[in-house]
């Protein structure tokens, strides 16, 4: 099995799906001649041409609007948003059009678009370009929200998203592109809406996704040196949210920590812990702990930025709180 980076995995998924289905095309800012801000589509312009790898104006509403129209007309657009912060410029297209057209037109149209967006902090890009607003998009029925934490899942889930009939927001974490992991040479397809146990354990359940999955796995490694076996569950998809492995795990460990990079208020931790309390109250042995970003606009200063973002130590501390 090859060990590749997240960037390579995403790139492979796009390449393979474009080879497989000529209806698939890419559009976005600097995706063509330049090869993508994060170099995901490097070489695509030369291979697939300007028709299928389209550079757009700096106008996110136009990018998603055009993608919606193309999808309704039978194509399979993959729109890249340079960062998820710019998705706010396309909010109306995403939540009022992509997410709702199929339901509002009684199924006459499907909108099979994939919006790739770069999320997350930690690269000193300032408060407006470093947000992790994943949860906002997961709020809207009609839109699937995927946020992988490993190269394997990134490749398998992106390919599944492109092949599906529904609009998908595919969230890539800005600091995960260099993360390496095993990805099979053969076809990789992962089901959307299925959470996954990334590390088995018996003492506590850590629920996370995306960058915080990697942080949680590091925390679990450190805890294991003290004999604390944490089970780490990767949500992978925020909508639809698959709670089954979480509940199953919690019923064994009776203790949980939810780790997310976004802010705590109204966050993933609030949603997941509420669902645990609803489904497994009689298995609760300690109040569930949430690990999240400090509730401030993310500072630019490196030290302050790292202080505001949840770290391995924060996850370890939260585990100690629940044990």
């Amino acid at each position, binding site marked *: 099995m090859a060990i590749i980076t997240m960037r390579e995995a995403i790139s492979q998924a796009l390449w393979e799906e474009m080879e497989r289905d000529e209806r698939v095309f890419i559009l976005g800012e600097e995706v063509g001649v330049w090869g993508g801000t994060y170099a995901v589509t490097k070489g695509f312009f030369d291979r697939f041409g300007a028709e299928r790898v389209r550079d757009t104006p700096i106008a996110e509403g136009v990018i998603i609007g055009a993608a919606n129209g193309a999808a309704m007309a039978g194509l399979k657009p993959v729109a890249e948003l340079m960062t998820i912060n710019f998705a706010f410029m396309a909010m109306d297209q995403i939540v009022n059009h992509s997410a709702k057209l199929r339901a509002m037109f009684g199924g006459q149209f499907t909108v099979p678009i994939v919006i790739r967006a770069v999320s997350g902090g930690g690269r000193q890009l300032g408060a407006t370009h470093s947000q992790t607003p994943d949860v906002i998009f997961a709020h809207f029925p009609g839109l699937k929200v995927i946020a992988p934490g490993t190269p394997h899942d990134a490749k398998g889930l992106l390919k599944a998203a492109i092949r599906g009939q529904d609009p998908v927001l595919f969230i890539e974490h800005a600091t995960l592109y260099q993360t390496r992991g095993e990805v099979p040479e053969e076809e990789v397809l992962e089901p959307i809406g299925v959470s996954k146990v990334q590390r088995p354990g018996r003492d506590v359940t850590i629920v996370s996704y995306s960058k915080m999955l990697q942080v949680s796995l590091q925390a679990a490694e450190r805890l294991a040196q003290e004999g604390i076996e944490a089970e780490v569950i990767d949500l992978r998809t925020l909508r639809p949210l698959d709670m089954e492995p979480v509940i199953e795990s919690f019923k064994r460990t*009776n203790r949980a920590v939810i780790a997310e990079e976004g802010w705590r208020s109204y966050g993933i931790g609030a949603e997941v812990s509420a669902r645990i309390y609803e489904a497994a*109250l*009689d*298995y*609760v*042995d*300690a109040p569930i702990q949430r690990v999240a970003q400090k509730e401030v606009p993310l500072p630019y200063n490196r030290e302050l930025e790292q202080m505001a973002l949840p770290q391995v130590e924060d996850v370890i501390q939260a585990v100690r709180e629940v044990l």
Partner: protein
Amino acid sequence: MAETIAMPKLGFDMAEGTLVRWLKREGETVQKGEVLAEIETDKATVEVEASVAGTIRRLIVAERSTVPVGAPIAILGTPDEPIDVLPAGQAAAGEPAPRAASPAPAPATTPAVGTSPPAGGDPTASGNLTGGVRASPLAHRLASERGLDLKAIAGSGPAGRIVKKDVLGASLAPAVPSGPGETLPLTRLRSAIGRRMLASKQQIPHFYLSIDVDAERLADTREQLNSSQPEGSKLSINDFIVKASALALRDVPGLNASLAGDSILRHAQVNVGVAVAVEDGLLTVVVRDADTRPLLAIGQEIREMVGRARQGRVRPEDVEGSTFTVSNLGMFEIDHFIAIINPPEAAILAVGSLRATPVVRDGQLAPGLRLKVTLSADHRVTDGAEAARWLQALRSRLEHPLSLLL
């Protein structure tokens, strides 16, 4: 002005009490000091007296109801003053239980919703929690599945919360053998003893020191004093030990103390509790200021309190406020034993019987009279050296019994 009678607090850790019986009815006139009701607590059945003279306007709590300490149980007043609402400040003290006049009294097993603060000292006391205990939902379910009473389980979680491992630990206890036999309900006293002793053994790091006291002069002194005492007023060995313990606590005050959160409370008074066997259990009656009271008065008071305890009619002041306990099994010819500390006290003295035994005196074997005592002490409050000094003080007092008569 109407006067509210509240559920009295009869001990350090009393959180609630059961109103067993009303002895007066609404509309009756009572004198100050007349008995209004009988209250059953963890420790005993006691009488509640009218704090003022007046007419009973309301009996707020039905017989067999359990209500938190401080909750109003009755209102006394003049026959015609309006008392439509509870006096100010009382309304929040507890949800009034159904009135006594109600034809169907509330079942005793349904405790009223408690709002009193947890009693001091015992971290497992939790007067204002659903079901009366602090336990995780999982612990509640596991205990229910196993038929365990959470009140009998000590919690190891934050704020004494009972968690899974506490319940699983408790359920490791041997299963009750099935088969023919007699099932006896756990009385309130029995379950209180169980809860307190379990918590003490689990939460207090006990350590133990034993000495053998030369009791010859003690026995002589007692005999001389009793020769002039009428029958029924004779001093027991235990009376001497109570007095000697109290003086030793003055000599070494570090043991006359309680752990209170992150500090140690040294008590100003020396109140010595005496463990008394009663029907289906054990009570501790308390000799207040035993260090300053004359020996004869101590003996007299203990006899009276023991009498009341065995009749199930102890008064609140008989059983509360002890700062140290003496447990004596000498009358059962027990050589020596080890006692469990009575929280929140810091130590307890276990006393065996007087034994005629060979002793070595000036290099010669000789007949002697000895008394073995064992001190159990809380290592969070004191240490071996201090506890040893206390035992030295006790020995000195008992081996020079005239000092107990000063």
